[in-house]
């Protein structure tokens, strides 16, 4: 994978290496499981004391996993992530009640919620989590639209918390009338037998869905979580003889700990590598921009020299002509020579300017019908690295029925990138209030196609509003003042207009209008 790739846990490919690690870890887990078997039924004494530490570890791991998954959702916006994150949150929130009600752990505090509460909470966790995983596996591929991922996350968190509180409330309210799951503090009742069976069924279904879909590495890791949980359950319910605090039961708990850590570890390592990749991409982009600036500097220096030369010659010729005419015996012939050279120099300067224009707009004749919406999407993709790094969403509102425009794709792409880069720079320069760039396309009354790029940045000083399109005028530190000049030149060469207006309450909107293609694209292309 190259640094430019959008590394994502939710997108293929699942690499061979990842598969190997997943299988290897599974085998190791199974090996440990086999090694434990002979001692599984041995009971332990007073190991209740370790239980609060174990519970705290599980709860923290699951909470952190949930937080990271919610964070990942804020970027990738896939529904599946939201469901998985909620599953971890759900599981984590049940842990405190489980350990609080565990017989013999908090006796000193006088807590005795009844034998069945612990088992009921365990049942909720045991069956609830794989249901969430199933939901994750079956979630449609679409992304959640809307401006703020935070709102969706908050809704989910609230729903999960409310669900857990309601469920626990019900359990506690009816703790006397709960079904008989535990015979005594250590041994399960008949009814419990169905719980592991149901859980295994859910694990198997989940694993099948994940392996079948295999949307990305995360599916594999979550599958591994299910395998660990299944082994845990196997140890606890069967190998350990369904006896609490036996050797088998404790080893099972270790599997639970491993299950809770897998996704967290994967997310953390992924986060680090994604961040490194992003930083590299960004550095590369900055270098490209820097190089472009240096090239522009060199170019403008050579242009200055090319124009300065005839200019100097014109001035000297004019001085000479004045002197020839001012002599006691005016030399009209020499004065005329000088004037003729002035005219020549003027033409020469003009040629330089024309040359620059055609150089800038080279290939402007190669025009084809273009979909402006697609150009916008490409430009947004180009700028998305930096935008994501600066945490500036690039939003688009593109008209569905936009007629094509006739133009040069490379030049218009450059113009769009330029305007988006400007917008990002303008937002970077202000503090952290609302930060976003909105790009809108539409057809206007005149039949022309109009594009607006609105930002929430510093805005354009009204006194500068017209001058920013002039060469060498820039409001950015380190700006060359060439970008907008180039943009306007390109848009006008396409028969369009480019201007700027303030955005309320803050920021600026750059607009441009291009004529829509009148002729159907097919016929246009056939013409020479």
């Amino acid at each position, binding site marked *: 994978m190259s640094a430019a790739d959008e590394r994502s846990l939710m997108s293929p490919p699942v690499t061979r290496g990842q598969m190997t690690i997943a299988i290897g870890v599974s085998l190791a887990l199974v090996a440990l499981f086999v090694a434990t078997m002979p001692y599984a039924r041995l009971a332990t004494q007073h190991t209740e004391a370790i239980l609060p530490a174990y519970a705290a570890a599980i709860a923290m791991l699951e909470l952190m996993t949930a937080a990271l998954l919610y964070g990942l959702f804020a970027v990738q916006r896939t529904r599946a992530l939201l469901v998985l994150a909620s599953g971890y949150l759900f599981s984590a929130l049940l842990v405190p009640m489980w350990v609080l009600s565990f017989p013999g752990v908090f006796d000193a505090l006088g807590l005795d919620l009844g034998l069945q509460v612990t088992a009921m909470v365990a049942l909720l966790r045991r069956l609830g989590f794989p249901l969430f995983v199933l939901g994750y596996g079956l979630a449609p591929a679409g992304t959640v639209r809307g401006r703020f991922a935070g709102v969706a996350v908050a809704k989910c968190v609230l729903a999960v918390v409310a669900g857990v509180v309601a469920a626990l409330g019900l359990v506690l309210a009816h703790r006397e009338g709960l079904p008989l799951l535990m015979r005594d503090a250590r041994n399960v009742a008949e009814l419990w037998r169905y719980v592991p069976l149901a859980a295994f069924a859910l694990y198997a279904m989940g694993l099948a869905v994940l392996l079948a879909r295999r949307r990305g590495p995360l599916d594999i890791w979550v599958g591994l979580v299910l395998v660990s949980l299944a082994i845990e359950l196997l140890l606890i319910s069967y190998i350990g003889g369904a006896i609490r605090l036996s050797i088998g039961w404790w080893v099972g708990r270790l599997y639970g700990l491993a299950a809770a850590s897998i996704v967290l570890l994967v997310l953390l390592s992924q986060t680090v590598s994604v961040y490194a990749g992003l930083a590299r991409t960004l550095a590369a982009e900055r270098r490209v921009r820097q190089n472009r600036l240096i090239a522009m500097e060199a170019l403008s*220096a050579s242009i*200055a*020299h090319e124009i*300065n*030369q*005839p*200019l*100097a*010659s*014109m*001035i*000297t*010729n004019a*001085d*000479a*002509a004045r*002197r*020839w005419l001012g*002599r006691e015996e005016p*030399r009209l012939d*020499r004065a005329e*020579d*000088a004037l003729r*050279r002035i005219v*020549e*120099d003027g033409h*020469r300067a003009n040629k330089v300017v024309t040359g620059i224009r055609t150089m800038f707009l080279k290939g402007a004749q190669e025009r084809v019908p273009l979909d402006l919406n697609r150009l916008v999407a490409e430009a947004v993709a180009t700028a998305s690295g930096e935008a994501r790094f600066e945490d500036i969403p690039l939003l688009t509102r593109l008209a569905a029925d936009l007629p094509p425009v006739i133009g040069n794709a490379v030049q218009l792409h450059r113009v769009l990138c330029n305007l988006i880069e400007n917008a990002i720079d303008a937002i970077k320069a202000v503090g952290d209030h609302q930060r976003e760039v909105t790009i809108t396309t539409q057809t206007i009354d005149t039949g022309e196609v109009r594009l607006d790029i609105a930002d929430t940045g510093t805005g354009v000083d009204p006194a500068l509003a017209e001058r920013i399109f002039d060469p060498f005028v820039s409001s950015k530190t380190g700006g060359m003042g060439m970008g907008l000049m180039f943009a306007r030149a390109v848009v006008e060469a396409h028969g369009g207009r480019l201007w700027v207006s303030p955005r309320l309450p803050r920021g600026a909107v750059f607009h441009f209008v291009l004529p829509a293609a009148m002729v159907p694209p097919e016929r246009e292309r056939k013409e020479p």
Partner: protein
Amino acid sequence: MSEQTAVFVVDDDPSVLASLESLLASEGHMVRTFESGRAFLDFARPDLPACLIVDVRLRGASGLEFQRELERHGIQLPVVFITGHGDVPMSVAAMKAGAIEFLLKPFRDQDLLDAVHNGIEQDRRRRAEAAQMAELRRRYAAMTPREREILPLVASGLMNKQIAVSLNLSEVTVKVHRAQIMQKLKARSLADLVRMADRLAGMGDKV
């Protein structure tokens, strides 16, 4: 201008050359233009008080390299640099190398003409100096070895008697030699003679 003066211009831009030629000619200078430093070095210069205008950026060799080339060829013309894009380090380098002026294009005509005028004056002084020196050397060459021996002693302020003693001559002989020296060097007074002796001594072994 009473005396004929020459200005040589080296610039690789023909239109700039033409405009400078016209401007300088309007002031009565004899102007010769060259598109390269090489062309100038190959040219047989007229024997006139002159000044050289050079564009710092020449194709091939830069103006500064050309300046060093001039030195190697023993050409002592005052140089005025002109440039389309001057920067401070370049102008400092040019001035250190002995340029009399560094002008940015486009320049005011008076600035250039003043610079050229100063350059020509400097060249005129240098030429006069060189001519005087050559004359003095010719006169010195006409003196006898004995006279050349006596000249520094006279110039150092010794009396005839003292000179006679130190060279083991009669005082009368020294007196005769002294009159000969005055006449051959065309010295109008003792002070004049001392000055000439100084200049001859300054040339050292060239004499």
